[in-house]
């Protein structure tokens, strides 16, 4: 189907067909990444601003590289060295970036809903790179992309997400994408971090590791986020590792072809030990490669997305032509 959205804010609001469009597009971009010449001019002349109000290395680098591969210019903006430190509001910061003709704003923020807020006040395309504990849509997409690539299907796949579900935006984006595409999702971790309320979304909740992994096709391990943990909610690293840490012995309860995934950065010896993280079932580094392809796909797709008034005023004819041409076999040029 044709992608029409101006922004990527979350996965909850996407249709299964929209998610599949992203995955199909990412598939092609992944092939491009294997070529000697990797840059395509789709976003030539465009400016992408990475507005990272919360620290991040791999997501920012991945977005930066994705933008460069599409020939866009990139500006990185981090909270430590910015006017946000001087008390400027997010809205003012973003409007200033737009006044410099930024075309895309990739935002990471500790407040859930910050990208949604920006999308309402800016004409630029807004991409959510993680907002509080709400969503991390590109991580959810790259995880599903990796599962699809490795297991050849999502519908009917049994995926166990293990760790701090309550505070995890990665978990939420995974849950939305997986459920929409027909996977069976099991959530596991300490009861304080994996409340039963998640059952209302259609997930299975268990606090017993063996139950969670014994028939799993995929185990997606979440990072224990020391920096976010509230001491009252978390049992302590030692207790967590002894109950929920994944090691070779414990993995014997899972099917032999179970896929081990982790969004990184890994706390080796906490949620997973090195033998498993670096083992043959681990696709952790493939996730990184796939993340680049997914982010290129997102930039490419939202670039064509229009504001509602743009569709009405200026682009209605051509936009509807684009819709039509997707449906017929060939109209040529």
């Amino acid at each position, binding site marked *: 189907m*044709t*992608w*029409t959205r101006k922004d990527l804010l979350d996965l909850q609001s996407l249709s299964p067909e929209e998610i599949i*469009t992203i995955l*199909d*597009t990412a*598939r*092609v*971009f992944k*092939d*491009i990444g294997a*070529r000697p*010449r990797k840059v*395509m*001019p*789709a976003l030539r002349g465009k400016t992408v601003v990475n507005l990272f109000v919360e620290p991040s290395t791999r997501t920012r680098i991945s977005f930066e590289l994705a933008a460069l591969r*599409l020939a866009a210019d990139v500006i990185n903006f981090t909270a430590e060295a910015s006017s946000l430190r001087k008390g400027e509001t997010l809205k003012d910061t973003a409007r200033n970036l737009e006044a410099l003709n930024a075309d895309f704003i990739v935002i990471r923020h500790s407040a859930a809903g910050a990208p949604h807020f920006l999308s309402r006040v800016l004409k630029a395309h807004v991409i959510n790179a993680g907002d509080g504990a709400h969503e991390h849509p590109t991580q959810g997409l790259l995880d599903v992309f990796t599962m699809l690539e490795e297991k050849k299907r999502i519908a009917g796949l049994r995926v166990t997400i293990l760790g701090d579900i309550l505070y995890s935006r990665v978990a939420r984006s995974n849950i939305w994408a997986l459920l929409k595409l027909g996977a069976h999702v099991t959530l596991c971790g300490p009861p304080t971090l994996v409340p039963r309320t998640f059952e209302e979304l259609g997930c299975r909740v268990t606090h017993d590791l063996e139950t969670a992994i014994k028939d799993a096709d995929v185990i997606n391990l979440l990072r224990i986020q020391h920096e976010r943990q509230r001491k009252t909610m978390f049992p302590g690293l030692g207790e967590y590792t002894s109950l929920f840490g994944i090691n070779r012995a414990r993995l014997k309860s899972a099917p032999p072809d179970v896929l081990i995934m982790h969004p990184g950065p890994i706390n080796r010896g906490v949620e997973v030990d090195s033998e498993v993280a670096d083992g043959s079932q681990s696709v952790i580094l493939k996730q990184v490669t796939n993340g680049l392809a997914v982010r290129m796909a997102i930039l*490419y*797709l939202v*670039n*064509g*997305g*229009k504001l509602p008034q743009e569709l009405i005023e200026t*682009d209605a004819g*051509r*936009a509807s*032509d*684009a*819709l039509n*041409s*997707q449906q*017929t*076999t*060939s*109209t*040529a*040029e």
Partner: protein
Amino acid sequence: MSTINEKKRVLLDATAIANILQHMAKELAKKNHPGTDVVLVGIQTGGVQLAHRLAEQLGKLWGRTVPVGQLDISMYRDDLDHRFAPKVHPTDILFDVSDKTVVLVDDVFFSGRTTRAALDALAELGRPKRVQLAVLIDRGHRELPIRPDFVGQTIDTAPGDRVDVQLPDNPQECKVVLEKSAE
């Protein structure tokens, strides 16, 4: 020529297309001597099936396999800011295009903008010795100084008309349909 309804008209049926392809292959064989490194590259999506059909004919004339690739030009279009993002398809060219005679193949030649984009896309993959363009239908209304080297059939159209080239796997079901714009 049969009529589907008042607006849609079948311009070419399966037999006509087969004859045209045979003729185009002969032209290609005549202009490119056997032994020269000729490869066919179909432009996604309409040119891909056509490139395979042409390569088959050319292969018969030369008695050897003619390599075929497929090229996606979405990233190189000049209208990406004015439309929804077009669906991207795989570029699949399993040979080096450098120093080859690359025949770009498309179903319909219209504005010439797809060909322009294809030339840019091709340049990323290597430096061909020469590039030629083969199209099944030239429907007129060029907007760029680009012209096909091999044309199956030239037809008169209004800019708003649609030319629909259908080349399914079964050659008997192939046809070209002209749909007049509603005026």
